[in-house]
């Protein structure tokens, strides 16, 4: 999860004021059409994942490509659909702490089991 996507890029910075229950005046909500565009991107990536799966010639590269594609989907849903891109940094921290912690500790466990070198 990249923390470099800051809310500055998205538009007016929202620090601590919430937007939940906000009105149409709030500038931080993507429009319906923008959401549909995001969904189209997600669908395209999914299609790419499935197609790539069938390309036998890729061998081990498959894993890397699929990883990149699914991380992209993951990030897109979190940042746009879950609105984390536009919301307070506190929410991002709460979620990312759990996410990073999980990746690290489970990564260590799996490493100690030698899963990567099987």
């Amino acid at each position: 999860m990249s923390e470099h996507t800051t809310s500055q890029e998205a538009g007016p910075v929202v620090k601590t004021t919430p937007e939940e229950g906000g009105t149409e005046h709030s500038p931080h909500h993507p429009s319906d059409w923008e959401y549909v565009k995001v969904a189209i991107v997600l669908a395209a990536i999914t299609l790419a994942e499935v197609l790539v799966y069938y390309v036998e010639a890729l061998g081990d590269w498959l894993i890397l490509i699929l990883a990149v594609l699914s991380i992209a989907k993951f990030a897109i849903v979190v940042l746009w659909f879950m609105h984390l891109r536009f919301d307070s940094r506190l929410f991002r921290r709460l979620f990312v702490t759990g996410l990073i912690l999980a990746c690290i500790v489970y990564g260590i466990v799996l490493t100690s089991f030698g899963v990567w070198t099987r």
Partner: protein
Amino acid sequence: MAITTSPPPQSPAELPPPPGSARPAPLRLLRRPTEPRGLWNWLTTVDHKKIGIMYSAAAFVFFIIGGLEALMLRVQLGSPENTFLSADAYNQVFTMHGTTMIFLVVMPLSAGFANFLLPIMVGARDVAFPRLNAFGFWVFLSGGLFMYTSFFLGGAPNGGWFGYAPLSRLMPGHNMDYWVFGLQILGIASLTGAINLIVTVINLRAPGMSLFRMPIFVWMSLVAQFLLLFALPVITVALFLLMFDRQFGANFFNAQAGADPLLWQHLFWLFGHPEVYILILPAMGVVSEILPVFSRKPLFGYQVMVISGIAIGFIGWGVWAHHMFATGVGPVATAAFSASTMFIAVPTGVKIFNWLATMWKGKIKATAPFLFAVGFVTMFTIGGLSGVTHAVVPSDTQQTDTYYIVAHFHYVLFGGSIFGLFGGAFYWWPKMFGKLLDDRLGKWQFWVMLLGFNLTFGPFHILGLQGMPRRIYTYPENRGWDVWNAVATWGSFLIAVGVLIFMVNVWKSRKSPAAGDDPWDARTLEWSIPSPPPEYNFKDIPLVVARDDWWHRKYEEDEDGRPVLRTRSIEEERAAETAALEAAAGGRTMAEIKEDTAETAAEAEAEAEADEAAEHQADHDEMATAAEDTHAHEDHGHDEEQGHDEEHIHLPSPSYWPLMASLSLPIICYGLIYKFLPVCILGGVWLLGSIYAWALEPATEPEEPDEPGPELSASTDLAPLSQGSE
């Protein structure tokens, strides 16, 4: 499915049903209580103070039970080849002793203190989700009782408090099923409690209560709640996997199917190690509150203490495999975890030195709470030192699974947590109950317990190094272990005497004179309100201007830095100064803001909480200024009523549903254990129904007919219009 506010028959309060409550009340029996009395009051309360007291009382009862279990173990081990407990009985008693002390004593005792104190210490009227709070308590109680019914239903858990697989998946009978399900229930209680307290501390602080002005106990509890938040899911999964193996023949720990027993150990200790910091951090927080008060000096190095606590929380995630040094994880893993384990001794040691520095050159008042706090510092240090020896892999390979380890964790958990929590009990008793515990009896208790404790667990170091293994129900005569085992047994009974002294003290103190609001001349906000506190805590939400805010309201410093009683209140002083500096932009308040911003801008990167302080300091001070103005307005009779008459403070309403929902959990579990599907379904329906009823009732019921529309309570409770989502 909402509930009207007509009072139940036994309540004398007669409130007419409010208008707009045209919501049907199909279940007349389950009318929401308005002002319940007696037992009903406690069963439906959502008041954090009552809930805290219930947590602590229940934990104390479990402490007695766990202590009796310990005495039984010590009787059995007091002499070689004893026959007091059979092997099977011993397995049950030692498993339940450990499980009880960890999950049913130290954790709920810490929860009890946190529940009672955290809202008051941050200047709030209650926690963020009062009904969820009640739910957490009732779930804990249900889970504990559920686990104990096993004694009467075929036998208690007998696979150790750590339930190592594959043994735990194979053990016959339902003993370990009670362990698995019981812990799952308890986990739900702790998780909801963690979310509640985290939101409370983040969101319900009084104006001016920035993160770095909060009492240390709040900080340490907060770190512990974050540890709970992230560690509980891991053991939840481990327990589910074990449950699937036992109930449905899954293969997670089935060696014959190719499973790896280390999976259990990794998952368990990934939880288990943060768990020990969950057990110790609140007690450390207690000590950090007590020592300054009875040294009449502020805590030495507050910011460093906070950061060390956060560091311990962080690093605590990186040491779990030190419980697995002898399992064959390999040299790379053992070396790495050995290093991280040594590393965590650093912030821990820092705390110890800071406590010493707090007492250094202080005006010591050696009351009972002070003695217990010093007991913590000394005994925990000893336990910590043996811990450091475990960090060294070669020596741990000898020590592991011997009584040396048992010595270590009892020194840190009993000498540490329990002593600290007893100190907290003595310190906060007057606040909770309005009466002081007898200090002389308290001192007797301390010395008896200290002696008994050291006589019990000191010899364990020796026994361990002499090779006595853990988890054995007896030992042969010719090993040379007899003498120290006998000493330990005598010591354990001395501990029991100490506990009895405490119980006598509690009984006696019922007749003590009123303690007053601030018997210790203390430093933090809870001492600024009556003892015991009114239900709403603060008549007026305080405006916090400094760390140890209450102390600063009482005292200012003379030229030599010594505390001197204030003649004017801080508000009066500031008003005078502001008036004098009317010409300057913003006056003194602005200077304070600048001071605070500079102070907090220098702190190191740490966990989310630490970052929040720097990030929101400006906002908090803005709020402080704004709230100050509003506060001034309110004080000068913005309402028709003068100021804040206590009757005009709106509090969340009591509710049945947390209790009702909690009862469903053991029912579901009984159904699963005995493979009786109808019971599971009944429990499931009960649970869902209770949750729906809970979600659909407002957190705070509308009150009188002349008050339509949403009330805004000074607690952060939701007004009736919004869905009560606690």
